[in-house]
């Protein structure tokens, strides 16, 4: 493995982050742990959306709805005595299937139609959550969502539940990392850079994009199943278009197509209301302005800025090397 500067920086960053994530919780109170757990859960959803947006290049405005789907699946099942693992499996299957059914016709036509179909689905899902009271208890919500027990250990306490969220995030992150490093990852790079060329080499771009979207949606469902016991009360209010937009902005700000992007974006999104609390109602406005400015400057987000800087450095170094080489060879042309 080539140990160049970006890789070294990435490894150092990851090590520091993991260390903090393991050690910090012990110094935090209940609220701090809640925020951290929320970050972990949102990171899972953002990782999924990054697959769809950053790797397959598709806009999904329904990730919030998939989180809702997962949350309701989790809430309904666990409040009826089913173990959470069943809810996770069901949420994955359900969200994958819905994602596939939405994506298949939309992608067959024009690639930007997926944005509109997911937009419509997002609103539809909210209506379903709100209206189907027999299942979701409608606006009254489902109360008392229990936290699971793993191997006899209960995760009722804030810190135990946080570690459950963290472990889940680690698992999901590993899965996504595996996917990106596999031949699938290569196919994604190809279809993003040059879909026509990719097609001519046998890459079924439609199939790959659809899979990315379906898997990304399934991960949204997983995040939802964890979200339910985190907040312990599920009603339709959080699962609106705003959540989908928020998740989208997380991926964008962090840096779409970068593995670390979702983590960074989720951190900013979850922590921002805390940092900007002094601005009272204005924080969302500031955030939106910040995103707009960031997009104009670097459409590949914060990690994109870092990447550009590092690439520029290495290009300068390479040019300097080449210049020095030709100088010593004299006129080698």
């Amino acid at each position, binding site marked *: 493995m080539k140990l160049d500067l970006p890789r070294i920086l990435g490894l150092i960053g990851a090590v520091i982050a993991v260390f903090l994530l393991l050690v910090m919780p012990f110094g935090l109170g209940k609220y701090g742990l809640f925020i951290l757990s929320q970050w972990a859960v949102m990171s899972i959803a953002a990782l999924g959306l990054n697959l769809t947006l950053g790797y397959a290049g598709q806009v999904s405005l329904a990730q919030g709805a998939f989180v809702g789907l997962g949350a309701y699946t989790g809430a309904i099942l666990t409040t009826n005595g089913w173990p959470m693992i069943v809810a996770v499996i069901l949420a994955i299957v359900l969200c994958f299937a819905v994602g596939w059914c939405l994506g298949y016709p939309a992608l067959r036509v024009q690639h930007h139609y997926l944005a509109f179909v997911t937009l419509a689905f997002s609103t539809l899902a909210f209506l379903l959550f709100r209206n189907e009271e027999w299942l979701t208890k409608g606006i009254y919500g489902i109360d008392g969502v229990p936290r699971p027990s793993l191997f006899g250990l209960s995760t009722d306490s804030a810190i135990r539940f946080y570690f459950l969220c963290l472990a889940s995030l680690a698992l999901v992150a590993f899965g996504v990392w595996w996917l990106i490093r596999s031949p699938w990852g290569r196919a994604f790079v190809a279809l993003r850079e040059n879909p026509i060329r990719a097609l001519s080499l046998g890459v079924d771009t439609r199939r790959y994009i659809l899979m990315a979207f379906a898997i990304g949606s399934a991960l949204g469902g997983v995040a939802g199943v964890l979200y339910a016991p985190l907040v312990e009360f599920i009603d339709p209010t959080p699962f609106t278009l705003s959540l989908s*937009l928020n998740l989208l902005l997380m991926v964008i700000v962090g840096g779409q197509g970068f593995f670390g992007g979702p983590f960074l974006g989720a951190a900013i999104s979850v922590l921002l209301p805390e940092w900007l609390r002094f601005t009272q109602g204005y924080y969302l406005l500031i955030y939106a302005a910040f995103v707009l400015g960031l997009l104009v400057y670097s*459409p590949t987000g914060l990690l994109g800025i870092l990447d550009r800087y590092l690439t520029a450095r290495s290009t300068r170094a390479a040019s300097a090397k080449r210049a020095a080489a030709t100088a010593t060879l004299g006129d080698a042309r």
Partner: protein
Amino acid sequence: MSQLINLIVSGCATGSIYALVAIGFTLLWQTSQTINFAQGEFVMLPAFFMLAAVNIGLPFWAGILVGTALSLLLLGVGFKRMIVDPMLRHGTLPLAIATMALSLFMKESVKEFYSAEAQPFPSIIPNVDLHFWGATVSTQSLGVLALAILAVIALQFLLTRTSVGRQMQAAAQNPTTARILGIPVERMIMYTFLINAALVSLASLLVTPVYLAKFSSGETLGLAAFIAAIVGGFNQVRGAIAGGLLLGIVDNLAATYISTQYRAAVPLVLLIVVILFRPQGLLGSAEERTV
């Protein structure tokens, strides 16, 4: 039966507003590959400009002028120069996402700087119920319909009968050739943005009296515009008109005959059905597939 007529007329009225917004949306896409996810907020904002003008003491008609002028400036020139131009060189997708951020920005701005409450908005058309043939039709519906039709006719005239309009069409269909022919393509694209700003201002003026001015009203309007454009046929202006009218009628019928809980779902289902079975839209032509 009389209720049906009433519903269809008021449906056409709402639909014609959707059509105006959808036309602007389609024009932006055709000429500069801009998918404006903030189109709904674009309709929400001009009303607030007009209200603000009235608040500082101007008479309503002056408020309308000031509001429209501000909209042309910000939503036309400003939008193009400050957001579209810088983002377009990164690609269509980043621009689309930027408009999403923009919609959030606009919503929050209005919420913070004006009010989070719904504001009443005066109508330029008096609302009187007319009775004929046993049906009740409001003058407001008729007035909205008439004004919208006028606007569309004016636009069609501009695009097909004037030299500027034909240049705009050429610039949209084939910018490279247009440039070679000496057409100032950049300026033509700017005109499209100005036209969109004008259309959304008119739509704002017509729709706000009914639904009140609220920072969040952009969501439903925007969604209606996208659905109208796609259902009608994404690549054409005629499609936007047809889609808008259809959507307005369907929406109104749904409000009456379907439970209030799911009435908002009808346009969404319509969208999904169209994409499934006739993705080129009602008036669109089947394009070369995406491959």
